[in-house]
């Protein structure tokens, strides 16, 4: 579960990125976080991944309190979440299979388990037949699916995707969203950050709108238009 209460985040240079954000995302939910560029979306993600600590307020994820978390506990928090970025962040000199297997090894999984699990998640994202390829031999959409397989492979509670479709064309974007929806239907909480209105409108999901470091709307369905209006008023 994700529970953010009254969170303020001010960067070292004085930028006030978040100004009192509160939101709760239950286990098994699918939620979009939307908002214009610079509104504070990535800052929220970084707080959830304990890359940053809140200036004030509480950030709670899967039972970890990010604000008071000991440095040594951060890796264990991160094992409960899978993060996907706009720029994929695959390792070019590793094959698709190795890119995914490598993160299991990184948390000390035995090779016996790795050999079973990696093909399973690659199959889930529809890339088992390309497991011996290198990232540069794949399309953007395929690369992002590898990134999702990687985020998924350690069996996290939550998948958090920060603008995962930012580098994809509309058809690939839709495919990717459907994949995330499928993953959600298998029981994983999914949080997708985006500013693509059309994409959000095609899914009847919870939409949390952020602007100027604050939650300005939080409801079901294609809301984006109204959010824009709210911010104008």
């Amino acid at each position: 579960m994700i529970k953010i209460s009254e969170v303020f985040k001010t960067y070292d240079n004085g930028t006030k990125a978040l100004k009192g954000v509160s939101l709760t995302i239950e286990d098994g939910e699918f939620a979009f976080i939307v908002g214009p560029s610079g509104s504070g979306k990535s800052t929220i993600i970084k707080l959830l991944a304990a890359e940053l600590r809140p200036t004030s307020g509480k950030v709670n994820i899967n039972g970890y309190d990010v604000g008071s978390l000991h440095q040594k506990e951060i890796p264990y928090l991160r094992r409960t979440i899978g993060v996907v970025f706009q720029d994929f962040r695959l390792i070019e000199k590793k094959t698709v299979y190795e890119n995914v297997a490598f993160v299991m090894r990184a948390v000390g999984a035995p090779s016996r388990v790795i050999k079973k699990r990696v093909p399973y998640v690659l199959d889930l994202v529809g890339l088992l037949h390309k497991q011996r390829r290198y990232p540069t031999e794949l399309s953007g959409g395929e690369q992002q699916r590898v990134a999702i397989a990687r985020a998924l492979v350690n069996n996290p509670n939550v998948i958090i995707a920060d603008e995962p479709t930012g580098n994809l064309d509309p058809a690939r974007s839709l495919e990717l969203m459907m994949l995330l929806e499928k993953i959600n239907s298998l029981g994983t909480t999914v949080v997708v950050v985006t500013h693509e209105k059309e994409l959000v409108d095609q899914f009847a999901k919870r939409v949390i709108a952020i602007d100027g470091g604050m939650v300005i709307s939080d409801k079901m369905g294609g809301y984006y238009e109204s959010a824009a209006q709210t911010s104008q008023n």
Partner: protein
Amino acid sequence: MKAQLRRLRTNLAYFFREGFKNIFVNGFMSFAAMSVLAACILITGSFTLVAYNIGVMIEDLESQNEIAVYIDDTVPREEAIKLEYQLKKIDNVDTIEFVPKEDAFEDYLEELGDDAYIIEDLREDNPLRDGYKITMKDISLHGETVKEISDIAGVGETISRKDISDKLLQIKNVVNAISMALIALLGAVSLFIVANTVRLALFYRREEIAIMKMVGATNSFIRMPFVVEGTIIGFLSGVVSYYAQYFVYKYITDKLIAGASFIEVVPFDAFSGTLFMTVTFAGVVIGLIGSVFTIQKFMKV
């Protein structure tokens, strides 16, 4: 427990595989680092061996630098012999040899050689005294030792070359100081080299490290392969420097023996085991420290 052991084994295998892989991935850099490191150890080793040989020579000279002790004429022979027990009690005394005045006279005769007839008449009325020849354990205590000997009742006079002791001591100190300075300097250079190699490996793999952190690998897990890499490089450098040392030593000592037969060098075999242990240990320690410190700095995120 069983599962933990299995996990430990899996991880160890991983650390070593990754550590070795790092060495090959940064092949040229690793090779360069190893060569320079081996050279550093070789230079340090060579100088230490020179110092060691000088030390052995000095020790030899020290053992020749005796204190001659003369017993008062008034002390009868039996008493003079008993003085040995008192002399032995002095901490710094190494060897003691009693020299009866008859022997001293013979020695003197021998020294005079052809001129011996001059004193031949004195044999019956030997003017020399009974005495001891004493060597010291530590020549830096020359003055004190002589004083302690002189304080013993019955000891008439001591003759020794404190100036020689002082000179030997001086040489020893200079050689030691140079060795120490060189070891410190080259040690620092070696650490710097290992640190740079590991820093490069870290830089080369920064993406992987970032991803490992993102998925929740612990810092120690991320560090280990780099520590293994640094340690292996250090170990190999030690081994390489040992064999290089073997050839350098053989070459130089052969030349020396051929050129100046009066110089005696310690044969390589006399210290080869110790040398091997020392240089590989030094390599491993430098590799370990160099990599641990570099990573410690790098991982502070």
